[in-house]
């Protein structure tokens, strides 16, 4: 087991290094931050630019810069933003909770909506509620999230003036962004719940439960749902990682002070340290989730451990 764990952690570290290396290298191909900073500076000379690059640490070879970055990571220092020198850890420390909170809220909305709908669809398979729910989920899947976001803002902020159109200022601020993400997740999740439920309902222990004379709801919620929950939880957990990636667009539309907005602005400003920091934190989270899942499987299933 120790050996398995050791190899899995080693693998995860390798992925992390590879991801940060690629990102650090790629962003350096896209333009010179010194020129970005000096845009509008009339008479800037090559010597001036060189001085700015030196101050930003960009005059060193790429590998040296990258090793500096790795060294910083180990000591918990992710450097300073090129835009004003704020520490990257501080920026991420402020943005990460906002993103996590939004991701959780979206997932929560989606779970609360998709489980009853999915069960309803499964129970009334082929009848009109099932058809309705399936059509609705297809419609939900087809919405581009930025369009949905703008429509929600038009309706609830401008026409009815009920919700704040952007920012994070209280629970009201969560409603529209979480709903935007939630609706699209729900569309997939309803179908997933329905299929899993249908499979479970066909199994023998459900037949036994029914034969025992248990009420319909007891069969559904006590026996069937519980057995469905294992694949569902795995799926929702993995979805969380994907959610973090998809949140960038929604964050931008709602001016959400999260990692997505931070990364987006960093790309626009060629703010290497901030972008590297955000990517590192995001990949670290996704790698850790995967690692935990793998290790959990390893604990449960001896076959995984041995291979």
């Amino acid at each position, binding site marked *: 087991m120790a050996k398995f764990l050791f190899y899995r952690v080693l693998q995860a570290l390798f992925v992390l290094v590879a991801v940060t290396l690629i990102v650090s290298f790629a962003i350096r191909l*896209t*333009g*010179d931050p*010194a*020129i*970005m*900073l*000096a*845009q*509008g*500076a*009339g*008479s*800037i*000379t090559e010597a*001036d630019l060189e*001085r*700015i690059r*030196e*101050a930003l640490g960009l005059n060193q070879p790429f590998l040296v810069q990258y090793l500096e970055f790795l060294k910083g990571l180990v000591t918990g220092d992710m450097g300073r*933003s*090129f*835009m*004003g*020198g*704020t520490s990257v850890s*501080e*920026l991420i420390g*402020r*943005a990460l909770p906002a993103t996590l909170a939004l991701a959780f809220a979206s997932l929560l909305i989606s779970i609360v909506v998709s489980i009853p709908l999915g069960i309803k669809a499964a129970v009334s398979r082929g009848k009109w509620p099932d058809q309705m729910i399936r059509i609705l989920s297809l419609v939900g899947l087809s919405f581009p999230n930025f369009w949905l976001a*703008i429509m929600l*803002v*038009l309706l609830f*902020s*401008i026409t009815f*003036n009920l919700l*704040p*159109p*952007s*920012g994070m200022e209280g629970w009201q601020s969560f409603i529209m962004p979480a709903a935007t993400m939630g609706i699209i997740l729900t569309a997939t999740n309803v179908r997933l719940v329905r299929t899993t439920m249908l499979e479970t309902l066909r199994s023998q222990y459900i037949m036994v439960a029914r034969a025992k004379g248990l009420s319909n709801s007891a069969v559904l919620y006590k026996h069937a749902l519980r057995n469905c929950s294992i694949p569902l939880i795995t799926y929702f957990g993995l979805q969380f990682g994907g959610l973090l990636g998809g949140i960038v667009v929604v964050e*931008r*539309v*709602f*001016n959400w*002070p999260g990692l997505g*907005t*931070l990364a*987006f*602005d960093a790309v626009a400003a*060629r703010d290497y340290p901030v972008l590297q920091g955000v990517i590192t934190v995001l990949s670290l989270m996704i790698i850790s989730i995967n690692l935990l899942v793998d290790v959990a499987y390893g604990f449960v299933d001896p076959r995984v451990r041995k291979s």
Partner: protein
Amino acid sequence: MKKTTTLFKVCTLTAAMLATSASYAGSLTIASPQDPGSWDPIDTFLVNWASVATNIFDGLTYRGPDLELVPGLATSWEELDDGKRIRFSLREDVVFHNGEPFNADAVKFTFDRLLGEEGSRGPQRSNYTAISHVEVIDDYTVDFFLYNSDPVLLTKLAGYGAMIVPPGYIEEHGDDYFNTHPVGTGPFKMVDYTPRSDVKLEAFADHWGGAPKLDSVTYRFISEPSTAVAELQSGRVDIVLPPTIPIGMIDSINNHPNSQVVSVPSPTVEALRFNTQSGITADERVRQAMIMAIDRQAIVDSILGGEGQVIASFQGTQSFGFDSELEPYPYDPQRAQALLKEAGVEPGASVQIDVRGNDATFGEVAQVVAAYLQGVGINASIQPYETNVLLNDIIPAGRTGEMFQQKWGGWTFDFDNTAYLMYHSGERWNPYDSDATLDEMLNSQRSITNREERETLLQFVARYTKERALEMPLYSLNALYGVSNRVQNFEPAPDNRVRLTDVDVSE
């Protein structure tokens, strides 16, 4: 007894509520598209720094929305030693927000810092390299010694890197602290700053120009235009600063009962510049023909919704060096075709237009240009690039197509800032052309301190570049502000630097 306490509590609570609603009456929220990250004047060149910082800091000179240069922290100045020395008399009884007095030492400290090691790490220093050093004559008199006279220096002292900073405060707290907790002598002081989110200012009652009418101002950083406009229309933002509002949203803002668009000519101009070295555009006649093939007024009217002016040279009407007598090339496709024939260009010749891919409005402009060129027998293809790739790699390396988009404009409104960088040999933005006559004119205007003489020369430069058709000048753009109806006394600033001293709000 208990009852009285409760009653007392209710009374204080009501009083407190009244107080908050009263202070709310004087507060304003502004949407700005970008957080500059640092508020130190020497660290940044972003126009969105200036739109906030113009309320926090003062310079020796001041230039408001009318673009007239007037005294700021200096009450008067005189040029000595043939423009190699400028003596400033300073305003007395001015204090910084932290109570520190403003005097000659603060001026010296500011420029020593800008021109010294701290300044060399930032982009601002390069603009002030004409200054050799600053000498304190007495508490309220300073001399600026110059290496060479700089005709734009007094304008440059009204903004950006030349903002006067407090020596005692910076020495005590350090540069890093100053980045996020700036202190100046301006009409507002910064009370709270949350990076990438917002910044809050409060009126500085002791400002030498009189206390502002507003109590407080909040700037929120919102980069997405539709989000900023939604905030404006839902009444949570009072002013949306440029450059945020796209042309396409003007109607929706004006049609809303609470808001309107206020516009003013900005320093930003756009042109399609030519590769004068290779391709059919190496021929001057072809370049002239291509300009005459385009109805630029139609582009301004239809695509820009009238929010722009056709230009004859690469500058707008407010630019120093603008010549109202210089006419743009007329729209004359027949003459264009004749010129093309004379130059031996066969119908069906092709050109490539390089544009910034994220600029939707210009994308439309480029397509219309291509359609007009088609009309005189030239096939134009449009090549979009990521903005930074175009600016950092394609243009400076001379790897553009026959034409490429250049968007330009400097807050100094001086044609030198455009002409020198666009036309002088060897400059970064001039990868193709080398013209000894131009070089000489551009060099000599930099040392002329007589305003009229210099203006005539700059106007001549403009005329010369027009005749050589070094670019297809398109238009100058207006700066578009989205403004809520509750805002009073708002005057749009051409350079984005909206000073809020006189602005007020009504309920």
